């Protein structure tokens, strides 16, 4: 197998730490060079934190595995400097179609509005995604990926706040210590086990077969989900395209099937033929029979050890809420870690990572569990309601909206976050405190074309005014004063004409979509976080309120 891709082999390089006479100490170590561990490393580098990534293997993902990457994940990856290559290589899609007994019953558009840089979704084999992230890490200083470095012992010493690791390598074991350990070693996290931490949840009693095939076909790049198709009675299937003419087929098998038997090519090929037709020429690329669990750790940190991605939470695959939520974990964490490392925010800011991402994990678990219950009903009554919904969806809008073949990954609105400042003024729309910022096309003073290219990596104050040139001196002074705090806030004037005085950054809301999406009027301001979330918003500029909101958003208040 594996005709579509040849895995790169990354060299194991002996580190000077292995020959050092004394224990070498590092500010940050990340375990796992999968998508989420690599994202943590890239984000650390962007924040100026030297990071070491330890991985027990020496290549990227074997097999295509996770293939759907969401708009929000791509926005994060774009901030990390590697989305473009993924979007260029990946298959862009936004339409999902749902069939019941071979009849199209409903379809959904995941990004019905224009004016976002990133597509709703791309499908891309996980190995490409990881490879591009490794390539990106080569461009940045301060990331050191150590391949063939397997962590065997973790000593998380609560008194010293120092984590000591024993690491096995081809040259034998060595030890290092670190102030902070980010654990990104996946659903079967060995670090989690070493620390004796539980991950409670439930296993679903159903089996699914993934078969990736290479096939020349001219189906549109859409997600096709079939309930009870004639070629696979009583079960469901999913068809999705990837790069290089690779297609993802997913068959629901039922709990009674033998996984070893089902993984044999002689059993897979007839299933593929039944689905795609006898005459379709294809080659089998990769197959895997899986079951899944929905579970999360009760708490995503233990002292200086912080869990991200599948190591912290695990969901069913329907909805692509695994890797996509992992990227949002590190997006949330790294700027906080930087402030805490620099002594600009208390340790409680790391607790807010737990509060926010545990909340998001619960939402992902809720949605993916609901999808699973719809796809794989557990009782006769549940099956009857499911099939009645599908029957009614042939004719009725309300039933179409109830059909749940996977609620595809979307960002949680962190409305309960302790970092939020509640609205005092009236606003319409979704840009509440805790929301991920909506993108929009703009023209920036450094030729930026998209809002999220400007709003990133620092606290910023968006100040909306029709004509930036009319910004009065006192307002300009207040805006500039914000850059002088221990945690600076960059002011960004959003206008439709003119240039703000005294060199204040100005962007033009060329299609007026920013002011629409943010329900902005003259004088409206938004305090935004380095991870592109809204921290607070007001109808008029008041420095003391913004300063208080910054304190709240950094646990300094």
């Amino acid at each position, binding site marked *: 197998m594996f005709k579509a891709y040849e895995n790169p082999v990354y060299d194991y390089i002996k580190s000077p730490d292995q020959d050092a006479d004394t224990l070498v100490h590092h500010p940050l170590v990340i375990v796992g060079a999968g998508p989420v561990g690599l994202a943590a490393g890239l984000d650390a580098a962007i924040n100026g934190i030297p990071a070491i990534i330890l991985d027990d293997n020496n290549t990227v993902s074997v097999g295509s595995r996770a293939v759907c990457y969401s708009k929000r994940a791509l926005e994060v990856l774009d901030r990390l400097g590697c989305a473009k290559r993924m979007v260029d290589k990946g298959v862009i899609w936004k339409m999902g179609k749902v069939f019941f007994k071979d009849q199209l019953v409903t379809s959904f558009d995941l990004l019905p509005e224009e004016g976002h840089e990133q597509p709703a979704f791309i499908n891309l084999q996980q190995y490409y995604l990881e490879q591009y992230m490794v390539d990106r890490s080569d461009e940045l200083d301060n990331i050191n990926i150590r391949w063939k470095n397997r962590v065997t012992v973790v000593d998380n010493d609560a008194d010293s706040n120092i984590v000591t690791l024993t690491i096995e390598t081809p040259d034998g074991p060595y030890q290092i210590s670190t102030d902070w350990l980010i654990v990104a070693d996946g659903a079967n996290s060995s670090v989690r086990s070493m620390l004796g931490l539980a991950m409670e949840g439930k296993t679903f009693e159903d089996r699914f077969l993934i078969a990736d095939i290479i096939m020349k076909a001219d189906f549109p790049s859409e997600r096709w989900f079939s309930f009870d198709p004639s070629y696979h009675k009583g079960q469901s299937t999913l068809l999705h395209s990837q790069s290089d003419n690779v297609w993802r087929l997913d068959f629901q098998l039922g709990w009674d099937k033998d996984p070893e038997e089902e993984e044999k090519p002689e059993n897979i090929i007839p299933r593929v033929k039944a689905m795609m037709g006898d005459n379709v020429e294809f080659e089998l690329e990769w197959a895997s029979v899986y079951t899944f669990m929905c579970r999360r750790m009760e708490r995503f940190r233990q002292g200086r050890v912080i869990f991200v991605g599948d190591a912290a939470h695990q969901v069913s695959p329907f909805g692509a809420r695994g890797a996509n939520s992992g990227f949002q974990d590190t997006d949330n964490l790294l700027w906080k870690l930087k402030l805490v490392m620099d002594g600009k925010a208390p340790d409680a800011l790391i607790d807010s990572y737990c509060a926010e991402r545990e909340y998001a994990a619960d939402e992902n678990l809720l949605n993916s569990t609901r999808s699973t219950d*719809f796809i794989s009903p557990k009782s006769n009554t549940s099956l009857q309601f499911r099939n009645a919904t599908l029957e009614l969806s042939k004719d009725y809008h*309300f039933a179409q909206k109830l059909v749940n073949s996977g609620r595809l990954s979307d960002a949680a*609105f962190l409305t309960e976050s302790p970092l939020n400042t509640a609205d005092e003024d009236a606003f319409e729309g979704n840009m509440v405190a805790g929301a991920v910022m909506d993108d929009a096309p703009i023209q920036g003073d450094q030729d930026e074309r998209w809002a999220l290219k400007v709003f990133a990596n620092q606290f910023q104050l968006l100040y909306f005014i029709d004509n930036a040139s009319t910004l009065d001196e006192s307002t300009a002074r207040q805006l500039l004063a914000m850059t002088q705090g221990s945690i600076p806030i960059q002011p960004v004037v959003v206008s439709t004409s003119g240039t703000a005085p005294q060199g204040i950054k100005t962007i033009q809301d060329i299609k007026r979509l920013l002011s629409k999406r943010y329900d902005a009027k003259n004088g409206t301001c938004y305090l935004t976080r380095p991870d592109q979330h809204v921290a607070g918003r007001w109808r008029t500029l008041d420095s003391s309120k913004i300063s208080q909101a910054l304190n709240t958003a950094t646990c300094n208040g």
Partner: protein
Amino acid sequence: MSRTKTLNTESNFYQPNQQVFRAYRAGDDFYEALIETHLGLTDEQSQQVNAKLILLLANQVGDLDVLREALDAARQGV
């Protein structure tokens, strides 16, 4: 009194006094509650629950024109 109401088949689930960010959320909340109501029941018990549920909801709707439309729609294709 002129007839104004017809059976609403557009999606109509909502959580009162709560901002909803995702269009699928309220419907999914209902669907889960519906399935959970039947948790642990035998098929026969579930049928009883469903019969009672239909009667309760029918009384809530009240409008016989609407109810007759719903009865027809439910009977279709069975």
